[in-house]
């Protein structure tokens, strides 16, 4: 940020930051997105479907670019594309083995659409840039409300599906025999990932989405084997990365997304080193 200087009086720094509406919006949207990304990310990592999350983000890029061409809010394009692509991906590949191919096919097609939309779009190049790398400082109060609604819907769905989703993620065959609708769950889950991706793109952008969805959950998975604890840890890591990233970004000339991704990455590296050492010193 220009014209603002960091002082060691943290309370006045925070007051200073929160004096701006765009910073308040950024902190609010960042908190909602961290909560959703942390929770959904836990299942993405548990189910080993990080490629699906990655692909959905790029599919979202095409959607956002398409919305920009039509002159509507990119978040609607993100939602439309992420949800329908999520449905197609979930429906095409039932088993993990076939899924990567199905996802790759959808990914390639929609990225092609994205290229077309970008070439059709006559507006500023910054629009494409903000879709790719996030524009958390450009979030409006309306965006915050929409983020809240989408976030609430995805969290409510996860809460409803919690146990069967956990069961199907860990042991699909037994879950199926116990009448868990594994195929339906897999479609609905990829669509929930689509929702999480659509809201997270606003904060870190299409290319950096793993910093909020995958990295915090991977940290949590290394720290705890209890699903409830792991969910909380993932959310806390995502939230701290976002908020600290925002605060650092406010006082520096560099992009907020860079700080968010770096903090989340550094957390992973530290946790991995610590748990790795602990694992080696343990006899079993």
């Amino acid at each position, binding site marked *: 940020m220009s014209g603002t200087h960091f002082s060691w009086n943290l309370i006045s720094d925070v007051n200073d930051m929160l004096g701006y509406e765009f910073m308040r919006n950024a902190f609010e949207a960042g908190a909602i997105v961290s909560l959703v990304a942390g929770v959904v990310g836990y299942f993405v990592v*548990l189910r*080993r479907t990080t490629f699906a999350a990655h692909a959905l983000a790029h599919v979202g890029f095409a959607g956002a670019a398409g919305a920009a061409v039509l002159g509507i809010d990119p978040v609607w394009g993100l939602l439309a594309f992420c949800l329908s692509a999520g449905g197609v991906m979930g429906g095409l590949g039932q088993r993990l083995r076939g899924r990567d191919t199905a996802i790759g096919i959808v990914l390639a097609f929609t990225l092609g659409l994205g290229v077309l939309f970008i070439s059709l779009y006559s507006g500023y190049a910054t629009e494409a840039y903000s879709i790719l790398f996030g524009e958390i400082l450009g979030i409006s109060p309306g965006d915050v409300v929409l983020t809240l609604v989408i976030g609430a819907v995805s969290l409510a769905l996860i*809460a*409803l*599906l*919690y*146990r*069967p989703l*956990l*069961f199907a993620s*860990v*042991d699909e*065959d*037994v*879950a*199926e*025999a*116990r*009448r*868990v609708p594994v195929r339906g769950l897999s479609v609905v889950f990829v669509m929930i990932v689509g929702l999480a991706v659509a809201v997270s793109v606003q904060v870190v952008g299409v290319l950096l989405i793993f910093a909020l969805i995958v990295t915090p959950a991977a940290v949590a*998975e*290394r720290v*705890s*084997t*209890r*699903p409830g604890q*792991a969910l909380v840890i993932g959310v806390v890591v995502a939230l701290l990365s976002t908020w600290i990233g925002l605060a650092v970004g406010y006082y520096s000339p560099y992009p907020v997304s860079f700080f968010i991704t770096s903090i989340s990455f550094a957390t992973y590296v530290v946790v991995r080193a610590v748990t790795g050492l602990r694992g080696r010193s343990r006899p*079993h």
Partner: protein
Amino acid sequence: MSTQHSTPVVEAHGLAGGYRGSPIWCNADFTIASGEFVGVLGPNGAGKSTLVKLLLGLLTPLAGNLLVLGSRPYRGSPEIGYVPQGRGLDPEIALRGIDLVGLGVDGHRWGFRLPTPRNGERAVRVARALDSVGATDYADRRVGQLSGGERQRLLLAQALVSEPSLLLLDEPFANLDVRHQATMSQLVADVARARGITVLLVAHDVNPLRRVLDRVCYVAGGGVAIGTPDEIVTGPVLSRLYGAPVEVLTDSRGRRFVVGLEEEAAHPHNDEHTHSYG
């Protein structure tokens, strides 16, 4: 090992199994009594897992009648405990054994577990299942830190936790060495006898099971034959089933080896390392 005289646990009449339009075996007639330990044997691709899926209600019979515990098989019966075929658990999974077994209690229920008084009862059931397979000591450890045998014990505990009266184990020991296969079959037999559970265990090799088996259900050549190992694992019966000349050799320790299937390139009873996709 005596079989109890009561309603049969499994009754099949003129049963045909397979996928729509392509039956794998047909005209199967057999009855399995309560408390029996039945080994399901046969070559790769002969339809052993198909039989298990029919019993689970995951497939419907192509022809004939099938009754499991007195009713037509249906998905989600808490009366059936199941350990599927496969490579076992993902060793990287960040869960404890105790959570894995707990999924067998209420993993199929919607929502998350609320703090209710019934949780105490749930914990008791999980602890009992873990104890019955000797997995209590490592139930709090990360699944990835356990050996293959320990993970299989956890899956068995998960299958037992709903207190089933029928256990369906589809090649549960395929990744274990022969010694562990024998130990695990003995464990299954002990638990089953203590709880009066009927067991159908799909296996590649009859020999690690020979001390615990009551009967053999042999699936091969488009048919199913059931009887005691002495009745079924013999040259004439298997030759008729396969429709090809087959010999059964018995060594000095009573182990049986099926030979004469070179054209099928399958030696289901003497090669522990052949992986089955049946």
